[in-house]
């Protein structure tokens, strides 16, 4: 299961939602907003998503992980909107009989989300500047002012 949330995530509730009598392991990953990126001091982040396709692609990734690693359950939630430093931006949880496959599946899910799900991140810097992450490198203005 994958979904997008515009309100703060509650990890304990999410953990409990995965409980299963045959599960011997729960591995979770939390992605937090950090205060720096590529040499800039970051004050806040804004996530925007293409909700219909993001939901579809996220769901596909979670299903792939279940099929690939033979885990019991998996779930991921991604925040959208404006987030402050320290806030929880993305949560991934995987349950399995034993820990090894839960670690692998959790890593697979977060890696694939970052590559494939149409979610964008705008960083607001302490300098007053802002920018869309991963977008400046491939614009025709690339290389002019990002040192």
């Amino acid at each position, binding site marked *: 299961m994958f979904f997008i949330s515009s309100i703060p995530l509650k990890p304990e509730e999410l953990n409990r939602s995965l409980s299963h009598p045959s599960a011997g392991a729960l591995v979770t990953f939390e992605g937090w907003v950090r205060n720096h990126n590529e040499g800039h001091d970051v004050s806040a982040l804004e996530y*925007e998503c293409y909700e219909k*396709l993001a939901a579809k692609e996220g769901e596909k990734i979670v299903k792939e992980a279940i099929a690939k690693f033979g885990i019991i359950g998996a779930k991921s939630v991604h925040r959208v909107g404006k987030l402050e430093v320290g806030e929880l931006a993305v949560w991934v949880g995987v349950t399995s009989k034993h820990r090894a496959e839960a670690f692998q599946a959790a890593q697979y899910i977060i890696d694939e989300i*970052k590559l494939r*799900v149409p*979610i*964008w991140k705008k960083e607001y810097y302490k300098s007053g500047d802002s920018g869309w992450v*991963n*977008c400046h490198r491939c614009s*025709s203005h690339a290389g002019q002012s990002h040192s």
Partner: protein
Amino acid sequence: MIMSKPKKIKIQYFAILREERGVDLDELETSARTPEEVYETLKDQHGFSMSFKNLRVAINDEFESGDHELKDGDTVVFIPPVAGG
């Protein structure tokens, strides 16, 4: 550019493209055959900074290739490099 029969399509914009366009939706009539042709026209019109080769394309909420043949009523999204997580 190979022109085809005019059709009405919608373009939905997100993130950097939404900001550069100034709106989140365009409804237009076009003779362009593919998303790539539509993008090149819009890029000239609105001065988009991204090259088409850096974008992915979705049509009616499914990923498609840039040379997918457009039909009347399609909704097209040009997807800038993603940055979730």
